[in-house]
C-alpha cells in the first residue's frame, strides 16, 4: 500500500488498518530474522561506574515549569486522576 507520509489526524478505522499493516510487516521482518544464526549478547563494561556525587538539584524554575506543563493543577499539586489516562 502506498501513501504519503504527511501528518494527519488518525480515525479509529485507520488505526485498525495500521494495526493489521504493522503486524504483517513485523511478522515478515521477524520470520527473516529467525534464520539468523547468532547468540543473544549483552555488553558488559569493564569499568566506568559513575560516582554518585550530590545528585541533581531542582530549582524553583523547574517546579514552576512542571506545574505550568500539567493539564490540571490544584494549588501546589498536579491532579492525576486515578485511571484518568484510560479515558
Amino acid at each position, binding site marked *: *500500500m*502506498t*501513501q*504519503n*507520509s*504527511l*501528518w*494527519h*489526524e*488518525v480515525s479509529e478505522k*485507520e*488505526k485498525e488498518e*495500521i*494495526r493489521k*499493516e*504493522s*503486524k504483517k*510487516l*513485523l511478522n515478515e*521482518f*521477524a520470520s*527473516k*530474522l*529467525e534464520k*539468523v*544464526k*547468532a*547468540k*543473544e*549478547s549483552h555488553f558488559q*563494561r*569493564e*569499568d*566506568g561506574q*559513575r*560516582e*554518585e*556525587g550530590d545528585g*541533581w538539584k*531542582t530549582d524553583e*524554575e*523547574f*517546579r*514552576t*515549569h*512542571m506545574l*505550568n*506543563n*500539567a*493539564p*490540571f493543577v490544584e494549588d501546589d499539586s*498536579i491532579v*492525576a*486522576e486515578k485511571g*484518568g*489516562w484510560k479515558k
Partner: protein
Amino acid sequence: MNLKSKAKQISAGKLSAVENVLAFSKKIATPKTKDLNIFLKLNENAISQAKAIDKRIKEKGDVGRLAGLCFAVKSNISVKGLETNCASKVLEGYISPYNATVINKLIAEDAIILGMLNMDEFASGASGETSAFGPTKNPRNPELIPGGSSSGSAAAVAAELCDFAIGSDTGGSIRNPASHCGVVGLKPTYGAVSRYGLIDLSMSLDCVGTLTKSPEDAKLIFNIIQGQDNFDQTTNSNQTLDLINQRTIGSPTSGRGRATASLGGESNSKEKITKRGIIGLVDVSKFCDKEIADLIKTKTEEIAKKKGWKIKKVNLPLDISIQTYYILVYTEFFSTTRKFEGRRFGKKIESSAGPEVLRRIIGGSEITKAEHDGRYYKEALRARAFIKEQFNKLFKEVDAIILPTVPKTAHKIGEAISIKDMYNYDITTTPASIAGIPAISVPIGKINEKEVGLQINTPHFQEELMFKLASDF
C-alpha cells in the same frame, strides 16, 4: 570561514555576538525562509545573551571556545524555558524545565541558542514530512523532502540560518537529512555523547550529534559535547577523547578510545595505531540506485588514488539490519511512550499522534505481548549480535567502511510511497546504529540536481580517524 575562525573573530572583537545573532535572525524572518518551515520556536533571549557575551569580551573577561556562535536545536532535545515539543501535538506547549547535558556544555562555551527546529514527529520518519506542524522543505529545492528525522537541523545549516545545529540519530536521522541537504552529519559512537535530556525514540540506539558545513566544524563541536555524564550511564569516561589535543584521556582498554589517524597522507596524531591503509567499500548493488552506487565508487577511488589507500570490496548484512532495526525501535518506542499519558504534561499520545508514530506504538504493543516472549525483540537482539560480529570481522581487515548515506535521492514532498520503501531509506545507515559505531555523512556531489552523501563508518570511539577521512572528501 570555519567555526573556529569565526569564534576567534568574535573573541577578538572583530565581529560582535550581537551582529552574528542579528544576521541570522534577519534571515530567519524573511518570507522565503519562513516558507521552508525550519524553525518551530525562536529563543527570544538570544540578543540579551549575545550582549552579555560581547560585554565580557569588551571587558577582557574569559569567554568559551564557541563564544558568540549561534546554534539551533532539534525539538526533542530539552532546552530550559523553550518548547520541546518533538514536532507533535502531544507535547505542544510543553516547556522544558531543564537543559539536556549537550545544551549545558554548549552554553558553557558561550554558544547562543537561536531556537527549536522542526523534525519528524517523535523522530519517527526519514523524510521530514511527519511533523504535526507541517513538513520541512529542502532549502536546496523546496519541492523536495529534506530527509529526516532531523529535518530542521539539516535544513537550518544548509540554508545558513545558524552556525551549526544539534540533532539526534537513531537509525540515520542525522546522516539521512545531511545527505539530502548537502551538509555534514555526525552520529558519534553510542555512549560518546550524553543522551540526558533527549526525548528518546529507542534508548539502545539513540545518539546526539551534529550538523555542520564541514567535518572540521563537526570535530570542534563533537569535542565539546562528548564525554562521561553521571546522568547517562551509557557514557564512559575511559573512552573520552580529547580530539583537539589529539590524545586519549584515561586508560583505553582493548585498543578502544585511541585517537587514530594514519591512513595515508600526513597526520598530526601522536599515536598511529592503524597501519593497514585499507578502506572497505560496501557492495550496495542490490539495495541502492545504480547512479548513487557509481558516484560513491568513483569518488572513493579518486580519493584513494590521491591518498594512497587500497580499496577492498566488502559486504554488510543490510537487509537484516533494517529488519532488526525496526523491531528494536517499535519495541523500545512503545515502552518509552508509556509516559505520555497526558496527566503530568501534554496529551495522551494515542489520541494526538500522527500515523507513523501510531504505527510504531500499535506495532510495538502487539509484539511485546507476553504470548510473544522469545520472539521479535529477542530475535532482533540475536540479529544485533550477528551484525556487530560482522563489523568486528570487517574491522580486522579494513580501517574504515564507505557506503552511500541514503540509497535513493530525495522524493517530492507529499509523494505517495510504501511503508517498506520509506523504511528502506534507512538501509545503509542502520548497520552503524545497530553496531553502535560512529558514522559521518559528507556531501560528494549531485545526481539530477539532487544532493548525494557519502557515509564513513569506523570502529567504536575512532571518531578521529573518521574526521580525517571525511575531510579528505
